[in-house]
């Protein structure tokens, strides 16, 4: 499966990965090669086969609604590079989700 540079740029945007022009070109080649290999899966007949997303055989694993200790504010913030008055900080985001 060939991945064009436009597609690579689109995927990089979805993946929030900043790529240089050089990287974009490199990935277009490398990723295409790997995808070609993965395309071999098309040879397998999977009609009527269910998907396996996880092999663990448990179901309905749930907890009681009882609070446990949480981190202190300090503990929560200790690895942040930017913080202010107990908040995490990041450069301005202006679009509302």
């Amino acid at each position, binding site marked *: 499966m060939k991945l064009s540079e436009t597609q690579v740029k689109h995927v990089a945007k979805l993946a929030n990965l900043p790529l240089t022009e050089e990287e974009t070109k490199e990935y277009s080649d490398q990723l295409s090669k790997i995808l070609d290999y993965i395309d071999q899966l*098309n040879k397998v007949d*999977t009609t009527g086969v269910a998907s396996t997303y996880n*092999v663990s055989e*448990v179901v309905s694993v749930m907890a009681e609604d009882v609070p446990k200790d949480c981190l202190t504010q300090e503990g929560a913030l200790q690895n*942040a590079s930017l913080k202010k008055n107990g908040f995490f900080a990041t450069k301005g985001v202006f679009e509302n989700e």
Partner: protein
Amino acid sequence: MSDLTSLSLLQTIDALKENKFSESELNEAYLKRIQSLNPKLNAFLEVVNQTKGIPSGIKDIICTQGIKTTAGSKILSNFIPPYDATVIKKLKSQNVNIIGKLNNDEFAMGSSGENSAYGPTKNPWNLTKVPGGSSSGSAAAVAADLCVFSLGTDTGGSIRQPASLTGVVGLKPSYGRVSRYGSIAMASSLDQIGPFTKTVADARLVLEWISGPDGYDSNVVEIASPLRGLAMTSLRGGRLRRPTRQSLKGIKIGVPKEYFGEGLDKNVEKVVRNAIDQMVKLGVEVVEISLPHTQYAVEVYYTMMFSEVSSNLARFDGIRFGNSRDHFGDETKRRIMLGTFALSSGYYEAYFTKAAKVRTLIKQDFEKAFQKCDVIVGPVSPTVAWNLGEKISDPLMMYLSDVYTIPASLAGIPGLSVPCGFVDGLPVGLQILGKYMDEETILNVGEVYEKSTDWYKEKPKL
């Protein structure tokens, strides 16, 4: 006591009980050895000067409270977890302490250790060779007696393969036996934490210590914990016990024809077949089995794993911890890109869903095979350790070296790598795979085989 550091875990526990030496002497001996050997091995990224407990090394992808945890990446160069992974808590409750954090391929992505942002770990048997990956440091540290045992993680072979390449015991538990809470996620449906040890009996003990539900990992099976046959490694009496089994009579081993085809180095094949012959002498019956979808396992694994990875690494945005996303290494970026693509609109069905269906077929291959045998035996790696730099420029080539370990990960079944010989002075591991949640049998088989040979006694000259 210079051979303090060559003792196995069980021997160490016994010796401490018998006051042959103190805990601080034990730790001092290991720290000295680390100081002298780590510069050339680059196994440890972080060393903790401490004097209590039994010293273990922890793969740097597992969170240790207050101790820097980098996952082998520059993006976490300053990350100090505010919490311990469950397995760490469990080890601490057994008087085990952490002597250091061990090098690995960045975010567990690699089969040689060369994807670490902190330089590759060297193979203690030959410093120009790779130790395997991604748990490169964990394997090398145990092989070089830099700690009593270590923990690594196995997603597609990252415990079994480096164990094989460095001549130590490596165990990948069944998926759902050990809690993943605190292990930085690579592929959520495949990752398992497991031990690197000097003997199989050690592995059984560590497995017992770290197994079981914890209220944090929803996929851990409740009834998984008790391992039968534990009398074997019981700490009662303080003496190393003899295996409950001394012969393998009645055990049927399946030998998959797909694991002995093209791609397997002829010399490695010879060593593995000798090991199988040895097992026959111990009483096993050999059954030829087929795992027909083996040829698609690598594609399935990489599709699903890339996809889960791309999602699991989305949290690394530099806000609550870590550096910005441009600090990811090349292999990591590549996998994130591929995974994002495989999940994206228009491609999800063709890639992710398709792979998930073939995964079912691979799982069914094993279920059918296990109707005819108790364990499946074969090589771990198609070759012995290769030269540093040899495969790194071709990612695809690197992926293909995991062909024998990946299928078991996809099926979630347990796998053990046990030293079974050498080729040109480099170790070869024998892979023993068991039914889902049947670590008991593979450990028994592994131990009986191990004790019938002297391979486990070999140590690299450093």
